[in-house]
């Protein structure tokens, strides 16, 4: 009963702030709304009993990702943003099909996943050992190859970030009058 109420609270909050992310014009409010979405989703995870995912949601999304956005915030052209000039309109329109594609993919994965995944098999484990242990146990035995691949992906991400970031920084240095 209470769980249901809390779920309702968090999901409403998530939806409302999700709307805020799309509709608000001031970038700083957008980031706050995004933070609110992420925290509400983490709340939903906690309600559903997925503690590890919830905590990681908080650490990775609510802190790391949003802090990065806060950094990006300092590079926002504020004169434009506060005057509500629509900038990046074309890019926004272009991104729309991609977003649709993403949704389609997620739906696909969800549908396939539901049919493939073992049902109720882990519930007992989770109750017995705890969330983290079960995730760890599976991750480091069954999916260890994927785990190692993740490190490579992260490495590539890091290198890409450094290359793109430095390049931008240099052109930026040149741009300053």
């Amino acid at each position, binding site marked *: 009963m209470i769980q249901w109420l809390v779920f309702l609270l968090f999901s409403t909050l998530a939806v409302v702030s999700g709307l805020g992310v799309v509709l608000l014009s001031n970038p700083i409010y957008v980031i706050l709304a995004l933070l609110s979405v992420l925290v509400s989703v983490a709340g939903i995870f906690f309600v559903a009993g997925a503690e590890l995912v919830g905590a990681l949601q908080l650490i990775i999304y609510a*802190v790391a990702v949003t802090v990065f956005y806060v950094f990006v915030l*300092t590079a926002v052209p504020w004169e434009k943003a506060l005057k509500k000039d629509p900038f990046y309109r074309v890019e926004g329109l272009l991104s729309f099909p991609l977003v649709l594609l993403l949704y389609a993919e997620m739906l696909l994965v969800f549908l396939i996943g539901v049919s493939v995944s073992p049902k109720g098999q882990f519930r007992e484990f989770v109750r017995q050992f705890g969330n983290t242990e079960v995730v*760890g146990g599976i991750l480091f035995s069954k999916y260890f190859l994927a785990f190692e691949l993740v490190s490579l992906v992260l490495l590539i991400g890091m290198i890409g970030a450094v290359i793109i970031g430095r390049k931008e920084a240099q052109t930026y240095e040149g741009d300053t009058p």
Partner: protein
Amino acid sequence: MGYMALLLFFGVMLVIALVFVFVNSLLGPKTSDALQDYPYECGVPLYDKSAQSTFHQGYYLLGLLLLLFDIEAAFLFPWTVVYRYLGLFGFVEMFLFILILTYGLLYAWRKGALNWQYEEESL
């Protein structure tokens, strides 16, 4: 149930924080002085009226690195918990994982991504 307590605590703290926000406007005096709300900048006319303008910091890459390392940590936390049961295999797994990411760190280091704001050579 544990998280309900957290939620309850959150609600209580929210109320208290709101009290702190509004207590001064309730209890404090109200004076009017032409320059009392002038932003502090050492008592002289502001050169730029708004400080909310663009602020260059070269360290936003650190934000990106934080993200990457947090993801790494997200994978390592389950590992630390179950390491006891994994044995040598787990050690090798983790060692490789960290080795690869250390390479990434070294790469970022060499490229100067870990530097603060400005690179000496560009000056």
